[in-house]
């Protein structure tokens, strides 16, 4: 079974980290929501900050069928500089480097292939902020 339309319709959000901002209370969400937790429906699509910190993390040694062979999978909840909090995968590091509070930034990466035809699913992952000269 494959679910191309279900994946395809999410592409702007998955590829470009577009979320939504509540124009009444200022909360930011990723992925976007139609109704804010404050009850407002006055939300606008907006890019989410691409830098943030690890709020919590885990390393998965027994993945679901869809992610077999990719273990260990590093997953985190990150809090971005604009206050959005969401789940993502971590990349370009090893499990022993992970810490709550570690600075991370968004990168575009491959997630997995799907269905009989091997549709490649891409999306955003986060990596430790690189030390640059």
């Amino acid at each position: 079974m494959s679910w191309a339309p279900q994946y395809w319709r999410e592409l702007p959000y998955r590829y470009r980290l577009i979320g939504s901002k509540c124009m009444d209370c200022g909360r930011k969400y990723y992925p976007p929501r139609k109704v804010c937790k404050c009850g407002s429906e006055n939300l606008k699509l907006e890019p989410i900050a691409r830098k943030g910190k690890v709020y919590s993390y885990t390393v998965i040694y027994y993945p679901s069928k869809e992610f077999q062979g990719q273990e260990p999978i590093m997953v985190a909840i990150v809090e971005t500089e604009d206050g959005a909090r969401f789940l993502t995968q971590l990349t370009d590091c090893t499990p022993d480097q992970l810490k709550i509070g570690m600075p991370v930034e968004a990168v575009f990466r491959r997630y997995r292939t799907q269905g009989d035809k091997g549709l490649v699913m891409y999306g955003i992952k986060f990596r430790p902020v690189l030390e640059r000269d």
Partner: protein
Amino acid sequence: MRKVAVIGVGCIKVGEHWKKSLRDLCFEAFKNALNDAGIESQMIDGLYIGNMSSGYYQRQEHLGSLVADSLGLIGVPAVKIESACSSAGFTFKEAVQAVASGMHEIVAAIGVEKMTEVKTPDATSALVMAADHDYEAEFGVTFVGLNALIKRRYMHDYNVKDEDIAYFSVHCHKYGANNPHAQYPFPIKLETVMKSPIVADPIRLFECAGIGDGAAVAILCPLEKARELIDEDRIVEVAGVGAATDTIRLADHDSLTSFKATILATKRAVSSAKITLKDIDLVEVHDAFSITGIISLEDMGFYKPGQAAKAAVEGELEKDGKLPTNMSGGLKSRGHPVGATGIYQIIEVTQQLRGEFGKNQVEDAQIGAAQNIGGVGGSVTVTILRRFR
């Protein structure tokens, strides 16, 4: 609204029932409940079936028709209720409403899940359907992984030791050892828990409820009718039912270390039962993982945030402690056949209130509570039962 009573309960031992189908499991548990109530099946006029993943495990939906047919109740209205791991808690709530409203007279609330049709990675895929598919499951997280994110943050925020959280599993197994329908009826040592393989860091195998098959049934009728049908000593009243939802994505919860749905559902259940928390003599909490059991006790209001793990280690959750907890062995030891678990809890609390819980009987238990969580707190039910006599 009419007052509602539990007049019969029955289940099968949680386990790997290779030779039994989903229908067989329901049939056996139903027969046990009918015998317990001492009524005929033809008296049942409504059927609710809690189940999460029959579509995935058995490639079978339409459980309303299938189960009514299998039980010999052709013609009786029946419907499947799905709310992930709290499917059975919500099933019980629907059944209570059906009787309380006067729409039905004698109703069976069934919980069933047959998980052992598939291999573990497939079961892992089925279970993560409780999470947001597009933005959690598709990022490679598992259901254990989501709970590991909670445990990590909990240890960080409250400076609670890993082994104090893991101890909750030891506590549950101590009591599950005496439960005849437990999947893993034996005590375990803390050392065994700590040395078991990491499933999703920092959660180890022996902190997780296992995969198993089970079916559990509770039969309900109006309290007034119960007095005609069964011995008054065995009547258990449904004192209060509370339920709530929260955001489906864990990261969208207001707090990672507390389930708002448990807080809301408990308040609603306690207020509808017109009691206070202090009146509760024993509790069954939804310890799908050791950390889940601990934060549930905090969210229900029995302990302050960060305090429940210590309470377990210090013996407050024992049979003769301040708050006897999971005398059934909980999800860890009794087992967690997902869509059936909430009714197993109802059965165990009912048996406690009747004084029929054997070695783990809490002395003079009058009021008991059961808390059933769906997903990572996306939905929760809390049910309060009271001895009638």
